[in-house]
């Protein structure tokens, strides 16, 4: 038995394509999903998340934005008195996020 881990729907798609290309019979594999870290055994957590060879770490930077713009964004997201602008933001962009419910 072989185990393949995919991070998201797109990666799953890639892996499935590859399996098909390798001539593996459709339905010979089954998919299970982790909803949280609590569903993993210690070994699985190592393989998916902790292993330095396969884990994915990305540096976080301010990017093209300066400090002020970044802080402004954070204020909008987390600020105490910003409920109204968060609400407008959600109404504006709420349909863009794709989420598992």
């Amino acid at each position: 038995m072989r185990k393949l881990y995919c991070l998201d729907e797109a990666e799953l798609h890639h892996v499935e394509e590859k399996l098909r290309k390798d001539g593996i019979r459709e339905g010979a594999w089954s998919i299970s999903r982790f909803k949280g870290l609590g569903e993993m055994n210690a070994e699985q957590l190592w393989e998916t998340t902790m292993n330095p060879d396969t884990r994915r770490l990305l540096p976080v930077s301010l990017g093209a934005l300066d400090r002020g713009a970044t802080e402004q964004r954070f204020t909008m997201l987390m600020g105490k008195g910003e409920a109204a602008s968060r609400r407008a933001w959600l109404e504006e962009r709420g349909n863009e996020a794709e989420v598992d419910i």
Partner: protein
Amino acid sequence: MTERDLFSELGPTSGDESLTLADYAERAYLEYAVSVVKGRALPDVCDGQKPVQRRILYAMNEMGLGPTAKPVKSARVVGDVLGKYHPHGDTAAYDALVRMAQSFSLRYPLIDGQGNFGSRDGDGAAAMRYTEARLTRYASLLLDEIDEGTVDFIANYDGSAQEPGLLPARLPMVLLNGASGIAVGLATEIPSHNLREVAQAVMLLLRNPKTSLDELLQVIPGPDFPGGSQLISAPADIRDVYDTGRGSLKLRARYTLEDLARGQWQLVVHELPHGVSAQRVLEEIEDLTNPKVKTGKKALSAEQQQLRQTVLSVLDTVRDESGKDAPVRLVFEPRTSKIDQQELLNVLLAHTSLETSASVNLVMVGADGRPRQKNLREILLEWTEFRVATVTRRSEHRLGKVQERIHVLEGRLLVLLNIDEVIRIIRESDEPKPALIARFSLSDRQAEDILEIRLRQLARLEAIRIQQELDTLRKEQGELEALLGSPSAMRRQVIREIEADTKKFGDDRRTLIEQAARASAEVKIAEEPVTVIVSERGWVRARQGHGHDATQFTFKSGDALYGAYEVLTTDNVFAIATNGKVYSVPVAQMPSARGDGAPITSFVELEAGARIEHTFAASGDAQVLLTSSSGHGFVCQAADLVGRTRQGKSFVVLDDGAEPLRPALIASQLNSVLCVSEGGKALVFGIADAKVLRNGGRGVILMGLDPKESLLQAIVFGDAGVVLEGVGRGGKPIRREFSARELSGYVGARARKGRLIEPRVKQARLLLR
């Protein structure tokens, strides 16, 4: 943030090497927020269900738990819901199930609970291993058409099962049962409504999509709560709420006055406002009549004492007689039968939640997938569109079924007369299907059907029966095609179905809508003349009567008189802080003049870093000139400064570094403004030139100032003129009186710089003469 696409960049497969912090945070937050908004807390405009509710209903439907089935353990339902559709906590799912079964929570309960499902007093339901549940007949409004191709099914969380994305609601459930929830950045509070009324409104909109809100409100006069009660808001206020989708409605308990023997009587409350329990009312009365000393205080406050007296003077005892005969029965006995009934009522309504306001916030996930606040008309319109689409899909689905069956029957009719040959072909042919198709020119589907018929049935095929079925099916096909071909026929069909459902499920309104004035808790204050004495350091006290000699007032050492104001006990004391906030305190709360009084700061809650700069008292209709050291100023009424809370209200907008100056009261006969700057310049102009800003603000420039120069004081004077006080050279106190005529030499247009005034003094101060 209009054109940024948060989701194209930074995907894990895009190979980007660095994350932009702000974008990443925004995306993560948005995903979280949306999952809470759509996946948890908000109902959908189409079926009015939150995901957990939808999943419970669907799971129960799949388990065959209809209104006539034997109820099964709630734990089984919860287990199914969690395992198949809803990977969240079991308590969350069970609590949702319990709520759907509570006839005091939902106007039209969707679940029929067996066992202890809690009470309106806040008792919880029994554990899910004890209670049992099945669906009510109202649930059929949501589930009947689920298998008729009406809604899209989506894969569940692990792809092992399918669940409906929406339920094919036959009525706007979102209004019928309402909803409440708190998401991220959004919250919702939808009251429940009467089925008949909502159905009628929907039919109006189906007949004429241009039906106005006012016409809709003719049939939906307001919400209809499961517990009845009375809606006392004015029709205009109710309209406002439905027009904007947000606001608050005032609810009042319903009661009867029961006459007892020998002229005795008692007040009996039998319907409570939504969300209020008898238990809560009893607790409130207990708190009123037996108040606790607040933490940090040594004794009961005057307010607590007074409330206690007020309640005890009219109320003797209160009993909760709720029981099996009456779901709510709260009995209030007056202290004596001679008490005015209206007075007892008023005290109870004003001080307990027998009268409350219910907030309304019609937020839901729209048909476009966006969560948004909607007004009544939008909700109903969106739902009618959904309904028409659902019935269209249902008809198309049925049409497909009918056509297929007709096709199959036609095939059977063809072979009917040649049964023997059919049997021969099947026996002799290696591949009977192509042979059948070739011999009788059947379609693949028809040949398949013939081959699938059991021999016994094949022999018994009757032409008449097939023909009969074909006839009915062809008739139905015709009807369905007509329906699908004509939007107006479709709308009529939808209306007919709503009419039928109204007949079947409709019931009478429970909540009485009758406007009434809010019971006010006004504590009567005798209107008496009083003098408010304010010290330089902001200590205040009130002395009875007018006409006191200001020189007789004593102060703490180092403190001095700031001002004495002759007002009434019903007026207010106002304080202006360095951050431009104003605070108001009723004169009645001022300590007596027997001691030094109390600092004004003890009556208000200042923001950190702010100081109270000026304190004065005035009656509400008095005009006040508010000025700041930057030379700005405006006129308002003292009543405009009155705030409801101890937090004060932002009123004066101050430039950087500017401070509020001593406010000038504009009594009658006073019509000119004298401004004096730090540098000793004076300017006089008519009070009419100052702008009136009743909502506060920065005001206009009163006196033009050089850089670094600041305004010292502005005073409004009349014919009597003013007094200039200050300290001259060598620390010698100076006092100089100016008559109005002398001051006329300083008259200029507002915002001019003015002329130097003699004598030059330090710490100058202007008084009225």
